[in-house]
């Protein structure tokens, strides 16, 4: 019997979401492995993400704001 369109769609959804999760899991594993290897090979970190300064700046701004409007 020919599967209905809806059956095909259901299968595609299951396989599709499965593939997305499998692929991204492998990517997570790859990234973690990569981070491990890189940190093993280069003991001192070279680069600092921009997040620090941004967070600091925003935090400071909020603190300031709170002082003015307690």
């Amino acid at each position, binding site marked *: 019997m020919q599967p209905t369109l809806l059956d095909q769609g259901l299968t595609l959804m299951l396989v599709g979401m499965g593939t997305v999760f499998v692929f991204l899991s492998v990517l997570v594993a790859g990234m973690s492995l990569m981070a491990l290897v890189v940190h093993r090979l280069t003991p001192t970190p070279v680069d600092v993400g921009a997040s620090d300064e941004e*967070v600091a700046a925003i935090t400071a701004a909020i603190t300031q704001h709170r002082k003015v409007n307690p």
Partner: protein
Amino acid sequence: MELIEQIWTGSGIYQMKAGQLGMLVVCLLLLYLGIVRKFEPLLLVTIGFGGLLSNIPGVEIATGDGLLHLAYEVGIETGAFPLIIFMGVGALTDFGPLLANPRTLFLGAAAQFGIFATLLGALGLTELGLMDFSLREAAAIGIIGGADGPTAIYVAGKLAPNLLGAIAVAAYSYMALVPIIQPPIMKLLTTETERQIEMVQLREVSTAERILFPLLLLLLVGLLLPTAAPLLGMLAFGNLMRECGVVERLSNTTQNALINIVTIFLGLAVGSKLSAEQFLVPSTLGILVLGMVAFAIGTASGVIMAKVLNKISAQPINPLIGAAGVSAVPMAARVANKVGLEANPHNILLMHAMGPNVAGVIGSAVAAGIMIMFAS
């Protein structure tokens, strides 16, 4: 007299059909949304104007040797324009937050549920006899849920060129509607306490990791799902140019002149597909409704996945950042940040939300690869 009659019969007024008039109104609406409401103006302005040019009868610019038709053939049919845009996006994207917290990739994965739910919805409407979508068309419609314009255009160009106009318009319109669609869903699915969760500061990411990441991405996608490799490969290439530090002049041009030129012609070319026969049909309504549903489901899936991750993870995860998994970079991340600030004014989620946000781009491209593999 004869010549004046020739002018009259050659005029747009004389040749105008109701459908074209309707499309002119639609295109003016797109321009309004882009210019006044600032909905994704880079695309809605160019698409809208391309649509105007194409729907005035007698203007030979969207047919034959016309500029807009050439742009469509060269750039959309071949997939070249979306791929070059992806290269530009790669050159513009900082994957640092994702590298600092790889688990957020799962949030980008979960949000793709919207894509497949929409596919199912489109097929369901067909089963019910309300619409008449083929599997290929349903797959192309589903990608709207990925909230990624170039991905949607790339897939529609391959699977359902007849729906390209409606799909592109829906994709970009909904990306702009993120600040309206997402917050109610986010608040419905989270408690006040959850929204107040503060996350630990992101770790530093080394230059080596930044350089290796695009190569890792390309190799994995190539080895596991080659149909997604053109999109993710060009994204990775743009990002490698950005991060490798030795081709700065290429990276700058990719981020500016090149992506801008391609955006202009991509928009005009998509606009040239906004014809009444293909757009003023019930299926467009179906696409618009399904796209909205896709967005809502994607947002919900992302938030729920973030709640699950928060339960099983040692470090706290604020469920709000899950909503950023639908991509719509960087709008969705900003929305997550804003809703977070409302619950806890000390809680800066922006950088944490950028992780799932860019993960959503990757997730959508993977889903696109699956669609292309199975539906074509």
